[in-house]
């Protein structure tokens, strides 16, 4: 639930989602759900020549289970706040 809330606050930011099949998609975070499925707008694939499969796709829904990484803007994260929240969650669990 922590990361769900965290992503909700990131809506509107530009992120790059790297998937477990090595595909990397850049776009604006439109929405997220409890499974951490991600909806991106204005998408473009990072290496368009290597992955022309999504050339005509501008908005996409990415299933949470295929995400390997979500790359965030460095100033989009309040590291201390996140660190605190994670510590609290770990203690609670």
């Amino acid at each position, binding site marked *: 639930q922590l990361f769900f809330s965290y992503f909700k606050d990131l809506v509107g930011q530009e992120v790059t989602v790297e998937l477990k099949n090595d595909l990397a998609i850049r776009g604006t975070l439109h*929405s997220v759900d409890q499974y951490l499925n991600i909806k991106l707008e204005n998408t473009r694939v990072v290496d368009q020549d290597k*992955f022309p*499969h999504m050339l005509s796709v501008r908005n*996409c829904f990415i299933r949470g289970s*295929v995400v390997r990484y979500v790359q965030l803007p460095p100033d989009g994260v309040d590291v201390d706040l996140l660190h605190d929240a994670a510590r609290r969650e770990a203690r609670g669990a």
Partner: protein
Amino acid sequence: MPTKCSMKLLLNYLCNLFRSFNCSMATTTGLESLVDQIISVITNDGRNIVGVLKGFDQATNIILDESHERVFSTKEGVQQHVLGLYIIRGDNIGVIGELDEELDASLDFSKLRAHPLKPVVH
């Protein structure tokens, strides 16, 4: 005194309304907006299937009409295998993309060369 209370209530009401509106925007990633649209699905085994989204559920199982598979290879241009009406199980789905028909029409598939997508490795 009564006006202060009612102001507080009004403020509370407005805050809740705003919060619920905000929440619904950020938290329900429904595929509802994509129903009856042409979508491009990338499955876990690296296949790319294009079709019209007819239905979906919470497990992200989907029903795709008029579907065809686009096979990319490094040797020949893109091949399209017609499939018809398909149900794709949610476990096997990676990405569902909203296909922009204009952009898609402008692509020359016979010239496209690419390695097929890799399967998803957990």
